């Protein structure tokens, strides 16, 4: 539980470079429990990289990320900063869920099997209990009848909803969604956005990277605009879309809204 002392997610001065290129140049961001925060920004501004750092899929060179009061990813002692062990990183990753642009379902497992794997191997639940949770979540994303289908037998929209169920079933403190509709045919976008809206309404804490501006405005409690590895503006949707202060943001909104 987060309380008044600390936000659920606290990112401080996050710096990340790929080789010599600095991609995140000191990012600060807070999320409280139940927040739905959308990140918008032009291609290459570092949105995906930011999410991947939070989920510890990338190493980062500076700054700190705290999840529910626990500093994640690194341990610092006697002036040195060291990456945690695989076991520790895995435990911390299990606290956040991630939904990818390209679904990334396990192709050798059914929809239910995809949802159950983490429940069985990470949370060590007995099979029957894991199956029950999986069926429950698949029903919530509207796929009760597809539990025993393989990913190759599902449409893109259905696959992405399985991926959402897979992330949510782990009962994460925070869910990261990276352009979850970008790989979908236009007619399948809405079913996935509705699913995300449903979990937001149920009180999940979400950090969403999206190019769907209307969706960001509808679903978010806050919107963050990223520009060249920094957060250039952070505010409620009405401010971001209605009265942007940052000139780049105004420019970005003009070009994306045609």
């Amino acid at each position, binding site marked *: 539980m987060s309380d008044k002392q600390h936000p659920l997610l606290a990112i401080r001065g996050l710096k990340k470079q790929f080789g010599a290129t600095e991609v995140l140049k000191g990012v600060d961001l807070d999320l409280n429990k139940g927040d739905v925060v959308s990140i918008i920004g032009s291609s290459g501004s570092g949105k995906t990289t930011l999410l991947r750092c939070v989920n510890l899929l990338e190493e980062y060179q500076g700054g700190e990320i705290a999840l529910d009061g626990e500093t994640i990813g690194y341990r610092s002692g006697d002036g040195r900063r060291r990456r945690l062990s695989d076991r520790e990183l895995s435990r911390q*990753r299990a606290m956040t869920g991630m939904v*990818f642009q390209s679904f*990334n379902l396990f*192709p050798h497992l059914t929809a239910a099997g995809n949802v159950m794997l983490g429940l069985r191997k990470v949370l060590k639940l007995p099979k029957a209990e894991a199956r029950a949770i999986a069926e429950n979540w698949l029903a919530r994303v509207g796929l009760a009848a597809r539990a025993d289908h393989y*990913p190759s037998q599902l449409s893109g929209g259905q696959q992405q909803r399985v991926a959402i169920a897979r992330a949510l079933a782990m009962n994460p403190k925070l869910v990261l969604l990276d352009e979850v509709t970008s790989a979908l045919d236009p007619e399948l976008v809405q079913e996935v956005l509705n699913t995300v809206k449903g979990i937001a309404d149920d009180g999940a804490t979400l950090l969403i990277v999206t190019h769907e501006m209307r969706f960001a405005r509808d679903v978010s409690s806050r919107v963050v605009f990223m520009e060249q590895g920094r957060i250039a503006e952070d505010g409620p949707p009405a401010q971001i879309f209605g009265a942007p202060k940052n000139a780049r943001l105004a420019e970005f909104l003009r070009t994306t809204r045609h």
Partner: protein
Amino acid sequence: MEYSLHFGAVWASFDKLLSGLAIGLGLAVVAVAIGTVLGLLAAFASVGPYRLLRWAAAFYVSLIRNLPLLVLVLLAYFALPQAGITLDKYQSFAGALALYSGAYLTEVFRAGLISVPKGVIEAARAIGLTRLQTNVSVVAPIMLRNALPSLGNTFIGMFKDSSIAAAIAVPELTFEARKINVDTFRVIETWTVASGLYIAACVVIAALLRGLERRFPKF
């Protein structure tokens, strides 16, 4: 001079040929089973983060692949006892064939490993699976399915290579055929029947493997 075909003498020893066939198949099964384990270990080592293991895997593959199987078999049978390791001819041949198939399977599995999508591995890591759990529950099953056709071909190859065991007097099909040939002088008949048995066995194995592939559909 006319050579007239008389299969009678060969048929009289047909049971010997069949038992030879069974021994060859048995040796191939044992060798490929052990080779699969070796190949999996070496393949994971070769794409893993530890330089020493990567180096060891590369050394194993290039060492074995640059040796003719016959030389490896003779080495295992005649040289190992000098080093104080005594194996009977079945054990030493199965061991040599296992090492040999393991090197080829390393390459097969390595290609399979590289074909596992990176995003799928990241999805496993993202839900909190450790590196080992990811390899066991996600990477290995996908890779094995991708490798199934090559695994089948390797098995057929190793079954045919079991004929080399004749060189150390393992009574497999080729050895038995040579004995019948010497005893009966029916050269054409003997080798025709032996060839027919090899071909029939390989056709059956290939059909079984195709059945297996159908049971695990491609993703």
